[in-house]
């Protein structure tokens, strides 16, 4: 069964079109990540699914029911917000229980579900505290707990890790992945962070300017991007695009090579000067200005002794490069 189906969903604020004709399905138990630059409409799309905004056109179908005119509380969803959005006047326990009380669930059910969530998220010590007495990570766990107790058909996460510091972000990311495995529930997760997208998703939806650019598994998108935007958006450091390439490419097009597919070789096809070196310990990024004055990033695994100002010659395997035409679409013709 599909957990969510969007059919021709459009959303405009006044004359501004934010979402343009979105079609999408989320299968039962799937972890789907919406990713895109800020302002691409990913949060708006999530809010349309949640029912916090009405779709201007199109239908939203959750678990087999069209929910366009059903209020958020009755859609069978639960949402975790970026700013946690805990109720400041309620204890951790009551924050989690409020939604169930509104659904008029019997006390025993509420008690049981809350204690299960508390155990799962290791919140036992804080159960009677107010949100103001908790740290950021604990607050986010309470917010996740508040979603779990409702046992929704669909979990919605709106950039839940953006307010956490780097170390905590990684831990919470792993917790969310574990949670998904344990609950095997359908989840939709919005982020602008491609690491979160790549590591969590079963399926990534790349959005830009209110349109779906590409849908697929993380490795599909990485190895086989449909256009220059997706190619440049996923992967860190970002893919290099050369307009004056050593291979034949379409007119006004570009050749895309990932930084890790470039290697320093005597007699390589690309010549340039190293302008900056980033040493990360595990790997080294070289920023190179080519003879044609184009900027390139080269990722070398391990530590490297190259210095700024050195001349360098680079090469790559032809099958690892991507060609894009003047409309930035992928071209699949053989290179060279």
């Amino acid at each position, binding site marked *: 069964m599909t957990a969510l189906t969007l059919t021709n969903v459009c959303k405009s604020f006044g004359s501004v079109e934010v979402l343009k004709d979105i079609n999408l399905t989320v299968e039962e138990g799937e972890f789907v990540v919406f990713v895109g630059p800020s302002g691409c409409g990913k949060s708006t799309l999530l*809010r349309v699914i*949640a*029912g*916090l905004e009405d779709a201007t056109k199109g239908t939203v179908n959750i678990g087999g029911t069209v929910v366009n005119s059903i*209020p*958020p*509380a*009755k859609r069978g*969803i*639960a*949402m975790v*917000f*970026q*700013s*946690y*959005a*805990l*109720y*400041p*006047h309620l204890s951790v326990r009551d924050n989690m229980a*409020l*939604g169930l009380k*509104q*659904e008029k669930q019997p006390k025993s059910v509420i008690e049981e579900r809350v204690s299960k969530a508390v155990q799962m998220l290791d919140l036992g010590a804080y159960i009677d505290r*107010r*949100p*103001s*007495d*908790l740290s*950021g990570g604990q*607050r986010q766990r309470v917010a996740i707990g*508040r979603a779990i107790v409702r046992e929704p058909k669909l979990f919605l996460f*709106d950039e839940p890790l953006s*307010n956490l510091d780097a170390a905590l972000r990684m831990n919470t990311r792993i917790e969310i992945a574990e949670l998904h495995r344990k609950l095997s529930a359908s989840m939709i997760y919005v982020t602008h962070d491609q690491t979160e997208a790549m590591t969590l998703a079963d399926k990534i939806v790349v959005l830009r300017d209110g349109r779906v650019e590409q849908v697929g598994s993380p490795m599909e998108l990485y190895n086989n991007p449909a256009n220059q935007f997706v190619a440049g958006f996923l992967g860190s450091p970002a893919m290099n695009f050369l307009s004056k390439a050593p291979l034949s490419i379409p007119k006004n097009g570009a050749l895309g090579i990932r930084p890790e597919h470039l290697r320093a070789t005597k007699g390589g096809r690309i010549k340039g000067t190293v302008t900056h070196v980033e040493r990360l310990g595990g790997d080294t990024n070289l920023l190179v200005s080519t003879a044609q004055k184009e900027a390139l990033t080269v990722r070398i695994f391990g530590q490297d002794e190259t210095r700024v100002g050195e001349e360098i010659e680079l090469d790559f395997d032809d099958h690892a490069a991507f060609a894009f035409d003047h409309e930035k679409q992928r071209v699949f013709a053989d290179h060279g």
Partner: protein
Amino acid sequence: MNAARQNRFNTVAAHGALILYTLIALFPVFVIVINSFKTRKAIFREPLALPNADSFSLIGYETVLKQGDFFLYFQNSMIVTVGSLFLILLFGAMAAFALAEYRFKGNLVMGLYLALGIMIPIRIGTVAILEMMVQTGLVNTLWALILVYTAQGLPLAVFILSEFMRQVSDDLKNAGRIDGLSEYRIFFRLVLPLVRPAMATVAVFNMIPIWNDLWFPLILAPAEEVKTLTLGSQVFIGQFVTDWNAVLSALSLAILPVMALYVIFSRQLIRGITSGAVK
């Protein structure tokens, strides 16, 4: 203040300025209160002297309590002030929430229309208001005053509160919606507690002018049984003779209830409950 930025001269100067300002602000009140405890002769002989064994007298308070029904006046002023503040805060906050929260046609125009009242003094419409009150039979009732003061206070209340309500996190309200809270519960339980400092500000701003107003009580409710305190005190001020003991005593007494109300509201000005709701 941080020790590195502390500087003896600045500390002294800042405190000096604040103390000076406090003295200037409190001086008239001080003169009124000390003179209310003196005999009439002593008031005129040495207005700035403290009451001593010779000049001490409670004659003013005795007059005030004997003549006229001062407890009734107090009660009337209190009902009018508290009633008006309640309605101003309730309707002001509701209108502000609607303006801040919902997108609807004419939202901006409605906001400007409501703000217009800040610029136009309500007293310009006194004649029309009096006619309306006569026709609705509200003249010489406390309701006349409460309604007029509510109308007078709403524009500023809506203006200030809508600004604060825009700052309340959208996520919090949306979390409430997803948990199935009604818009009313979101308003009363989630939003209002977070804008309490702004509510207290609005209350304090409106309270003093309402308590001290002489104009509308004189025109709309001059009857003995609905007189407010300010109007009631006027009996001691005559064209030829003024009973200064009584006037000063009445004014001293009139300060107390406003002070009590102010203390109640200013406690709310202290933030605290808001922290931790959102980052």
